[in-house]
C-alpha cells in the first residue's frame, strides 16, 4: 500500500510519499514520477526490466532507482508502468533488486509533460511514522 501527493514547491515539483513498507516506497516514488512526466498514451509491446542498485542509504537507492527510470524513459523510450517486485537487502550497505513492468515506445514518439532534470536528495529523508514510511521527494524541472 502506498500513496503519493503533490505538495507546493516554489520552483520545482515536490511530492509526499507514504508507504506501508520500504519496498512500497519505490512504487510511490514511481507513481510520483509517472504523474509528473507521462502523458496519456497508447503503448507498444510490453518489456520488463530489472534494476540492481547499491548505496549507503534507502534514500540513495530511491534516487538511483528514479535516475535509471528517467534515463530509460527519456533516452530509450521505455515507459515504466508498475513495480512487479522490489527486494531490499540490508547487509554491507543497502542493496535493491527491482523488477519493473513497462512498454517500448520509441524515444521521439512520446511527448512528455515535463522535463525532469534530476531526482534530488532535497528533503528526502525516510522516516517511520504511524502512517507508515514517509518522505518528501523533489524533482528538479
Amino acid at each position, binding site marked *: 500500500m502506498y500513496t503519493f501527493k503533490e505538495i507546493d514547491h*516554489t*520552483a520545482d515539483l515536490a511530492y509526499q510519499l507514504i508507504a506501508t513498507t520500504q519496498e512500497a516506497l519505490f512504487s510511490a516514488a514511481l507513481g510520483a514520477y509517472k504523474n509528473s512526466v507521462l502523458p496519456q498514451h497508447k503503448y507498444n509491446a510490453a518489456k520488463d526490466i530489472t534494476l540492481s542498485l547499491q548505496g549507503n542509504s534507502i534514500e*540513495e537507492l530511491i*534516487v538511483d532507482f528514479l535516475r535509471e527510470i528517467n534515463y530509460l524513459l*527519456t533516452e530509450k523510450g521505455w515507459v515504466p508502468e508498475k513495480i512487479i517486485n522490489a527486494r531490499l537487502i540490508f547487509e554491507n550497505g543497502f542493496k535493491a533488486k527491482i523488477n519493473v513492468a513497462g512498454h517500448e515506445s520509441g524515444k521521439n514518439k512520446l*511527448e512528455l509533460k515535463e*522535463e525532469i532534470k*534530476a531526482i534530488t536528495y532535497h528533503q528526502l529523508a525516510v522516516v517511520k511514522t504511524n502512517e507508515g514510511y514517509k518522505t518528501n521527494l523533489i524533482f528538479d*524541472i
Partner: protein
Amino acid sequence: MIINGVELTRIHENLWEIPMSKGMRVPGRIYTTQSMLENFLAKEDAIKQVVNVAHLPGIEKYSLAMPDIHWGYGFPIGGVAATDINEGVISPGGVGYDINCGVRVVKTSLHHKEISTRITKIIEDLFKSVPTGVGSSGAIKKLCVKELKRILKDGSEWAIDNGFGVEQDLLFTEENGKMEGADPSAVSERAIERGLDQAGTLGSGNHFLEIDVVDEIFNNEIAETFGLFMGQVVIQIHTGSRGLGYQICDDYLQRLVKAEQRFGFNLPDRQLACAPVKSQEGTDYFNAMKCAANFAWNNRQIIMHLTEKSLIRSLGISNSELGFELLYDVAHNIAKMEEHNIDGRPKQLCVHRKGATRAFPPGKLIPERYRFVGQPVLIPGDMGRYSYIAAGSQKSMDETFGSSCHGAGRVASRHKAIKMGKGKDLLSEMRRFGVEIRAKGMKTIAEEMPYVYKDVTDVVDIMHNAGITKKVVKLKPFGVIKG
C-alpha cells in the same frame, strides 16, 4: 532579526550577515532588503542553505547570496562561494544541474517602431526555427559522437567553424565561448547520448528567446560603449547545456555522494556533496563541467544564428540592415578558477556561481571594448515586464568575488501558477503587457506568467545601490518564445 531560526545582522540597507555558528567556517552574507527577508525568504529554506554552504571545507570570506536568492539544491539559487584550490572543495551542487545556464543579448540596428506591427509574423517564424519544449531536438543535423566531443572541447568555436556565426562572436562570449581543459573522457556515455541531438535547442521551463526594446537608459556613457540606444531592438536568449549538462551533474553527484564517507566531510545536506578541488574526483568533475559549459555556449551560439536567419527571412531584410551583433554572453551556473584578493593577497580560488552572474569591473579581464566601463551583466526579468543590462564595478571584486544577481526569482509555485491561470485567456493577458508569445503549450505560459516572479527592478536596485553593479538600460519584451 531572526528568520527561520537563523540570526541576521544588518550591515547596511541592502546587506545582512549571518554570524558564524556551529560548523560554519565563515559567516554568511545576503544582499537583500528587510522587506524581501520578511516577505519571501521567511517562507522557504534558502537562508538555511546559505548557512549550510558556509560549512564547505576551504570556503573563503563568506557564503554569499545575491538578492534573487531562493531555495535550490544544496546551494541556494543566487549563491556564490569561493574555495581555496589547495585546501578547499568543488561541489556540483554549487553549479547546479543546468551547467552554464546563461544569457546572451544580441543587438540589432532595428528600431522598435520599424517592426512592432510585424511581431506576430516574426514570432511565428522564430518559433518554427528554434526547437523548443521538453526534449526538444533537431535544430541542426544529429551529430556523431566525434563531432559532439569536438563541441565539448571547443565550445562556440565549433559553431563558428560550421557557419553558425562569426569569429567576433567569440570575443563577446565569457571565456570566449570555450573553457580550456575540457575533457570529454570525463563525460559519461549517457551524457554524450543525451547531447547528440540537442545542440541549438532552447528546452523547456524558464528558458526563452525574447525580442526586447531598449526602454530606458540609466547610464548614457556605458550604454553608448555597449552600443545600445533608446528604441533599439535586441534579442535575449536564455538556455543552458540541456540534457547533457543535467546528466553530468547527476553522474558526479552520484559519484560524490557515494565517496562522502571516504572524504569524511560530514556536511549538513547530501546535495552539497563535494570533493577536494585537486582530488581525482574533483578534477574529473571540473573537466566534465567544462565540457557542459562549452556545449552550452555552442548551444546559444547556434540559436543566435538560427534567430538571425529567421529575422532576415520574416522581415525581408539583408544582414547589414539587421545589424546583428553580440553584446555579450554570460554564464550564471558555473565554477571557475579565478584570482581574488584575500586579506590583501592574490589567491587562486574556485568560485561557484549558482544563479549568479559574473560581474567583472573595468580592467583587463574583460573584452577590450568594455575595459573602461565594466562587463555587461545580463539580468532577465519575467516575460511581461522588463529585464536589465548592468555593468560590473570594482566593488563586486571587493565584496562578491566579481558576482551579481541573475534574474527575478519565482514567488509562486508552478502548481499555484496553473491554478491562477485557469479559465483565463493568457495570450490576451500577455498582449495587454504588449507581448506576443508562442509556446509549446499553455501550461508553460501559465507557469511563467509575470505575476509568478518577483519584480526584477527590486533585485537589480539592491545590487545597484550596494555598488556591486551599475544599471545601464532597461529592456521591455514585445515578442517571446518559450518551451
